[in-house]
């Protein structure tokens, strides 16, 4: 079923997007057809959200073309996308908590009568739209009191009120309960039957297979395949998603066997994570895999004293550790390279050496007076050792590329001479070359005795570096893999991207 002239409702050709030197999407061509539910599939960072955001006018393409009903169009901003009948429903709905449901649906275009808001017509129309969607919801209710799922419905209703023909749902089901997911599926099927074109971005195979007609699979910013769902299998799609050979083989030495350096027993912090137990030996790299939102970052933060777990114990070198602040954690030889480098790791306007020395200042000072010359010397050494590409160490950090910024953040922590390294997405958003260097560094450190917890959404990275892999799902460790038994398909399946295979029970934790 197609739109006017038999052309698809929307077609992209050669669509590319780069941020600075980093290309996140390259030469993407897709066709969105009326009455079809089309899945964009891929790992985190594969480029599926980028593609959706280009179509919805949130990003502007670096190259390539978009055709709407066979006519080339340029979409400068979301408003123009709206005028073209394109709407994006984000994972986190953009609602104004203090406005009513109806006001949120019609935000920015409330029906007016002689200069005043026409409340009667507002609530009437909102009620109609919600009824059309089959959602039982009082339009007068403030959005604050609504669940995420209901707030997504407000977004959807808003898009429908604008006569959107193309609906892009960006990981909309990620934060929904199973019941809410099936309600959404019913609604989407009805909309699709009414001739809308729906793009569904998600991870969960069961949703893809019960809902979608067609799938476009992306990997590393490129489209690697298109499949009709009726003619494919979950295994086939997973292979396409993960497919690549792990680019750079890092050689890990023999698996360490000594006593555990870090032991975590029954750590809980509801609702983020429950009953987390694991241990890391000296020289061991333990990977923590799982979907975004499974609780990986939260566990690292709790270990590092940034939040307080409600139950459980942490032992360092066999002795219980009292960790109430990052300071305490540092006292036990821990270091955390956080997930969001720009927000949590980097001080962009100040110099390289001020960044790199910050966490070691108690050591790099005497009675509170800074020993800046020592800091500068040390930073120079780290810059050399990590091959940070910079003009000089006086340079402000923002002048460096993402990968080099990350190396400076790592240098900041390595200067503290840690024994336990918590790495949260250490190579996110950095180029391939820097990534290889960071991988090599992680292995070198482990060989020198560092106990490392590696959190990463990059599956090949986790598989290449980890001696053991823990898989987290909804805040619980559901599986543990040895290096030898970990395959991409098995880890993905355990993480909750179900392939239809039953989960094996979690193996024993040392």
């Amino acid at each position, binding site marked *: 079923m197609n739109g006017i002239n038999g052309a698809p409702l929307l077609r992209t050709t050669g669509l590319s997007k780069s941020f600075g030197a980093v290309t996140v999407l390259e030469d993407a061509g897709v066709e969105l057809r009326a009455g079809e539910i089309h899945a964009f599939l891929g790992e985190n960072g594969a480029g599926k959200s980028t593609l959706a955001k280009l179509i919805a006018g949130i990003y502007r393409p670096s190259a390539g073309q978009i055709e709407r009903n066979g006519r080339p169009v340029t979409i400068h901003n979301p408003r123009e996308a709206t005028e073209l009948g394109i709407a994006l429903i984000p994972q986190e709905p953009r609602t104004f908590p203090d406005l009513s449901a109806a006001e949120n649906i019609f935000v920015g275009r409330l029906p007016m009568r002689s200069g005043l808001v026409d409340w009667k017509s507002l609530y009437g129309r909102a009620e109609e739209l919600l009824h059309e969607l089959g959602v039982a919801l009082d339009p007068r209710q403030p959005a604050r009191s609504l669940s995420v799922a209901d707030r997504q419905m407000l977004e959807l209703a808003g898009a429908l009120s604008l006569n959107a023909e193309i609906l892009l749902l960006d990981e909309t089901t990620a934060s929904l309960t199973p019941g809410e997911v099936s309600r959404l599926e019913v609604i989407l099927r009805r909309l699709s039957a009414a001739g809308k074109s729906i793009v569904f971005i998600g991870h969960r195979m069961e949703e893809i297979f019960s809902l979608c007609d067609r799938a476009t699979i992306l990997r590393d910013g490129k489209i690697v395949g298109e499949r009709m769902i009726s003619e494919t299998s979950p295994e086939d799609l997973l292979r396409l998603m993960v497919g690549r050979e792990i680019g750079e083989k890092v050689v890990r030495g023999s698996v360490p066997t000594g006593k555990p350096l870090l032991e975590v027993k029954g750590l809980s912090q509801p609702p983020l994570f429950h009953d987390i137990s694991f241990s890391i030996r000296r020289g061991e790299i333990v990977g923590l895999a799982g979907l975004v939102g499974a609780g990986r970052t939260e566990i690292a933060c709790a270990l590092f004293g940034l939040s307080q777990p409600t139950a459980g114990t942490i032992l360092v070198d066999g002795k219980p550790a009292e960790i109430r602040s990052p300071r305490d954690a540092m006292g036990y030889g821990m270091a955390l390279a*956080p997930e969001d480098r720009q927000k*949590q790791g980097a*001080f962009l306007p100040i110099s390289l050496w001020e960044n790199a020395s910050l966490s070691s200042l108690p050591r790099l000072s005497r009675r509170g007076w800074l020993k800046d010359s020592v800091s500068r010397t040390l930073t120079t050494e780290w810059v050399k050792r990590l091959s940070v590409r910079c003009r000089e160490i006086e340079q402000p950090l923002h002048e460096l590329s993402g990968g080099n910024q990350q190396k400076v953040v790592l240098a900041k922590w390595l200067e503290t001479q840690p024994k336990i390294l918590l790495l949260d997405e250490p190579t996110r958003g950095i180029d391939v070359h820097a990534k290889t260097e960071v991988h090599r560094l992680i292995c070198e450190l482990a060989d020198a005795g560092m106990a490392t917890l590696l959190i990463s959404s990059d599956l090949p990275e986790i598989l290449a570096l980890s001696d053991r892999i823990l898989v987290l799902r909804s805040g619980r460790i559901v599986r543990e893999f040895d290096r030898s038994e970990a395959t991409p398909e098995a880890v993905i399946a355990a993480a909750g991207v179900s392939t239809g295979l039953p989960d094996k029970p979690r193996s024993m934790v040392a």
Partner: protein
Amino acid sequence: MISSRIRRLWNAYAPEIVVTILLILAFVISGWREPRFLDAAYLFDRSTLYTEIGLLTLSMTLIIVAGHIDLSVTSIIAFVGAIIATLYSRYGIPFWLLIPLAPVFGGFLGAVNGYFVARRNLPSLVVTLATMALYRGMAQILLGDSSLMTPPDYTGIERVTLPHTYLHTPLVIWITLCLVFAALLHRTVFGRYITVTGVNPEAALYSGVPVAQTLIRLFTLSGAMAGVCSVLLLSRLGVARYDHARGWELDVITAVVLGGTSIFGGRGTIYGSVVAFLLITIVQTGMGVAGVKAEIQVTAIGLLLLLAVLLSRLTTGRK
């Protein structure tokens, strides 16, 4: 080579360079219009009128570099003054004993601000707006609308000069503290923690910087400085009143911002604040001497601030 070094210096310190040039200009123009202005004795004599603002500028620089604000300092001056005068005249506690207690009282009142900002995570603008009213109100409860005399032998210490110089006591205190604060901000771990907290408080926390402790110490210091100012003001005026120093906080913030400290935190120097404070003082004094009306003076300061900020931003493209 040289031009690239100048370029770099300019990129890093444009606001400081701009206010320095403005200060030299203001000095030359004022001296040319009014020769008395080049008389050191006259200049230093006038300077005592502004010492308290000069002192508060120093601690306010630290506060603003940390990404915060302290509006309550001038109310702390009045409140501490009221406490001291009351203890002296109603309870007969010797005045010399109360002088060293002034920074302690002030520090305590500042620590209250620090507690709410650091431990309760309230915005400092709101906290100090509240305590600005609270402390001023408590000063008025103590004193009512009347003035309380302080002992005559402590009045006028600001007129005492260092032997063989024109330097009055408050000026000596101010110069000393300028050096102390410059060292504190630029040479100590505390100062570095203040700066990085202003640059990115979340990253500071993640980097193991004791953010809360730093902020509490900082607000305590700010209050203690207000306590010192309180003693100087009592000595200069000879009476305690609840409305002392009212409105000065805005002059203080003006000087700090004019000196190139980012109002969003993370960037600033004591040098810039000191020069900007001198610039404002000279512009006001110069205009006063030249018989310019007060309202014109205020207008000129406003224009000066806009001009300085624009000049340093236009050329560096700093956000």
